[in-house]
């Protein structure tokens, strides 16, 4: 080691000078519960089922694609045929969030953009049932989420940027915000 440096502690002085300078720079700490960082659009957080503004029901058509693509197999869907209108309706739609890995495959694969991972990340529960979302809960999540969003809301995964149109299913190509 250089003797001048050893005697005069120059390297330590330089380090201290740096930390002293940083003391007068703008702090980067976010005081979390009081302040929040803005969440980027398309953040993969709590699940929600999109409520169709026209019918007031869920948009989901029960095609089971999301249940099939899900790597952790945490989506359960049951469909039945409505005896009056003879259309398939979703009877049960449940997401076990504790098993979800938040990959976003479900929202990307859904042909009618019915499921979305919202930007809401603060959800905890004391029991497992609190984090087992059924259809009503998922729709309520959507209503809660929409109040915080600018309309029309559009998720980037609904129509991924840069993916050629011919690779997308037809309803996704002309997808619009809600």
């Amino acid at each position: 080691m250089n003797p001048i440096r050893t005697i005069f502690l120059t390297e330590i002085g330089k380090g201290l000078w740096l930390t002293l300078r940083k003391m007068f720079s703008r702090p980067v700490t976010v005081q979390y519960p009081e302040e929040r960082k803005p969440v980027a659009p398309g953040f993969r957080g709590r699940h929600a089922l999109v409520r169709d503004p026209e019918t007031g029901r869920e948009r989901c058509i029960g095609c089971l694609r999301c249940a099939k693509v899900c790597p952790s197999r945490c989506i359960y869907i049951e469909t039945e045929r409505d005896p009056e209108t003879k259309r398939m309706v979703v009877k049960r739609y449940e997401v076990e969030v504790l098993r979800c890995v938040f990959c976003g495959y479900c929202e990307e694969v859904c042909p009618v953009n019915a499921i979305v991972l919202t930007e809401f990340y603060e959800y905890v529960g004391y029991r497992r049932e609190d984090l087992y979302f059924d259809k009503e809960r998922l729709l309520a999540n959507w209503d809660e989420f929409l109040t915080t969003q600018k309309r029309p809301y559009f998720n980037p995964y609904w129509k991924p940027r840069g993916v050629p149109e011919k690779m997308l299913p037809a309803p996704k190509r002309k997808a619009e915000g809600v």
Partner: protein
Amino acid sequence: MAPTLELYTRKIGHPEWEEPFVVNMGPQHPSTHGVLRLYLELDGETVVRCDPRIGYLHRGLEKLSENMTYTQAMVLTDRLDYISSAANNTGYCLAVEKLLGLEVPRRARLLRTIVCEMARISSHLLWLATHALDIGAMTVFLYCFRDREWLLDIYEKICGARLTVSYPRIGGVRLDFTSEIIDELYQFTEEFPTRITDYETLIDVNRIWLRRTKGIAVVPPEKALNMGLTGPSLRGSGVPYDVRKFRPYDAYDEVEFEVPVGKNGDTYDRYRVRMEEMRQANRIIRQCLDKLAQTEGEPVVAEGAPDLLMPEKKKAPRAVPHPKKGFMVKGEEVPVVPEGEVYVSIEAPKGELGYYIVSDGSGKPWRVRVRAPSFVHISAIPEMVKGHMVADIIAVIGTLDVVLGECDR
């Protein structure tokens, strides 16, 4: 008869009878970077024998992926080395693409190179932070986390997740960058070199840092090769082996960068190599960003890339049409992914990360084997700590930069 005092003292003094002092370091030790447990036999404070015991974070990822389709299994690779998940994804996707014979579009290759290098910077920042904290420098820890946060924010803007990104996909990437992300990355690459200089001001010539790192765990080049070290740990010993140069993947053959090497092979040299690598990674990101402008508007997914919803089995249309239903009736089963086996390795931040995949023609991999650098590096710990003090074990674990998620898988 109970042993007499005389016999007892004779036993203690006798080298064959003397029991070594055994210490279990970990699995909850804060400096073992996860759940590494080291079984140590000590003579005073000197390590006589060290025996790593691993497996506390075993989740069976290789076996799990046999029950998933190729696209689903990519999500698991996020959890290997959770600090640099984008690099793991890329390696896996490259392996499957080779199996499928896919040509990835240029824009997707550039985007992947950018996220890989971002993963390298963020991994090295976390390494520097924890390594410095273990050795006793608190300020560097805080500064590194401040800058890593910025990178994680950019990740969040790119793909919506901060740590387990799942950003690449087989045949390209999942989303294109927006212009704001590119602007922010330009800003980051502009500013980051000065940040590295700041860390260096703090510890590069600091006498405590030098005493704790110079001459600790020296690995000569031949020994490093024999122990199977890769990545910065090998380059610190002066062997310029880098997969990015030897077998370029993605866009690494388009960009210019240097491979920093050390001289003495001690902890300090490995530190220097990683610091230099961060600068080079910054340079690579910068060049890729410049090239991105040339490919504006191009697709980011290859033609013929498998859908996210991959079938497990596929039937081809009939060669001879069905008399009534025409070509709609499916005939013979055809392979979803061609049969065969591939090995693809990439330069992950920790070292050479390899994927060996065997396909039996269905949509699920028959076998996935991950060659994880951390696993090999942990096997080098006993050699490297022999004869050192207990406090130096922390420095050795830090300098090898092991992540147990990757080691135990």
